[in-house]
């Protein structure tokens, strides 16, 4: 598509190209640099493109995630989507930033009771501690029956909030586990 730009030597000097080529005023072809001539979009050099859905709002726009070296290098609209036809709003358009933001958490943070600072904790330990807390709180706050002896089978000592940003599969496992544990105070953004 573009002008062939000689890679080196005097002939690559735009001044020379200007006087020997068509672009006498050096307003176009003659002034191109080698870098410009080699320009390619990130979308073309990605290792793979993965089909996705925007994580922000319920419009449900289609997204294409471009991945290079296991990093998300670009997120844009999926023209195939009958809903969004390739378009994205400002939030959807900012999705790459969501994945690359330096303030994204990648380590567990722990604040001990009455603590004044975050501490580090490894994931395994955190999981084990959380499981212990759930079991203990459930044990301590279990309501087998109501005052008049009707079964309740539950704990009112634990609550959960969130779900509208999560996948159906995730909500399903949450609801399934909580219900089995007798946790009924399970809530999400549907109240908002």
């Amino acid at each position, binding site marked *: 598509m573009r002008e062939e730009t000689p890679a080196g030597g005097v002939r690559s*000097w*735009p*001044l020379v190209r*200007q006087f020997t080529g068509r672009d006498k*005023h*050096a*307003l176009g072809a*003659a*002034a191109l640099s080698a870098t410009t001539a080699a320009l390619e979009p990130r979308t073309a050099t990605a290792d793979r493109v993965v089909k996705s859905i925007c994580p922000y709002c319920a419009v449900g726009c289609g997204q294409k995630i471009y991945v290079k070296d296991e990093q998300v290098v670009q997120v844009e609209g999926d023209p195939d989507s009958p809903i969004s036809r390739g378009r994205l709003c400002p939030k959807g358009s900012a999705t790459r930033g969501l994945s690359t933001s330096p303030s994204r958490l990648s380590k567990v943070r722990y604040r001990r009771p009455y603590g004044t600072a975050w501490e580090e904790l490894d994931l395994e330990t955190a999981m084990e501690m959380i499981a212990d807390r759930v079991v203990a709180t459930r044990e301590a706050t279990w309501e087998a029956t109501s005052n008049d002896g009707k079964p309740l089978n539950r704990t009112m000592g634990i609550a959960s909030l969130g779900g509208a940003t999560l996948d159906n599969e995730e909500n399903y496992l949450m609801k399934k586990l909580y219900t089995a544990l007798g946790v009924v105070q399970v809530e999400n953004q549907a109240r908002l």
Partner: protein
Amino acid sequence: MNVSNETLPTAADTGAVPKSASYYGRPIVKPHVWKPYIAWYFWIGGAAGAASVECVCARMRGADALATVEKRAALAGVLVAPVLLIADLGVPSRFINMLRVFKLTSPMNLGSWILTAFGGAIGASTFAELLGWKRTSRALEVVAAGLGPALTVYTAVLVADTATPVWHEAGDTLPFVFAASGVASAGAVGVAFAPSQQNGSARRLMIGGAIGLLAAGAAMEKRLGPLLGEPYRTGTGGSFRATSGALSAAGIVVGLLGHKNRTASRLAATCVAAACVLERFAVSAAGKQSAQDPKYTIEPQRARLNARRDLDLESSG
């Protein structure tokens, strides 16, 4: 069913809505982003160019001492000029890219070639002189003098070839301001540094240039008209210009009265040189001011449009 809106301030009064016909008073064109280096460069380059001409004139008259002073001034100018230019660049290491192309459409590009050629000529001339190749040196002085006027005035074209209202609209007079400034400065250099017996022409140049500067400045302001003249009368641009004018006048008076007195002469030269520097700063500042306030962009353009529309109406009968 609005509650007595008439008596209440509207958002426009409170500043929420763009005032008059501009966008929140924001600039439409961008003010130049040059640091003071460039104003200094305009002065130094202009002076160097004029000095080279004076050098040859002096040479022709046999005023070698004056010629030497002017030549040194020119040489100093071309040595400092690139430093100033480079200092102002965003990517100084790429100064050389100025010579990547030859662009008739770019006064700055042409200026770079001019500066290069001029610098080459003066530099080579000085070098030849050191080697004792007098004729070569003299010939190269003439070459430099051929390029000198271009070096002095191209910067006027450079600034006029922009969308900065007070620059572009003054495009016809600005080169005279710059030329006068160059002449006056070259003269001032001669007055200050050449032996007094040889500096008569320099004095005339200095005084003539200073008068020219005042005259060209006045012409420019007249040409700009009441609205566009404003930036030269108000704000930083106004102060610079007023001071410059006062210094010019002082230089002229002291230069005329005190021409016998070396100290007075030097004082006059200093005044004139300072006036020239300040004039460049005035141009720079006024340019910025005129770009920052959108009225200087909008009103002349509107007037032009309306005039054109009236013309259209007339021709369409």
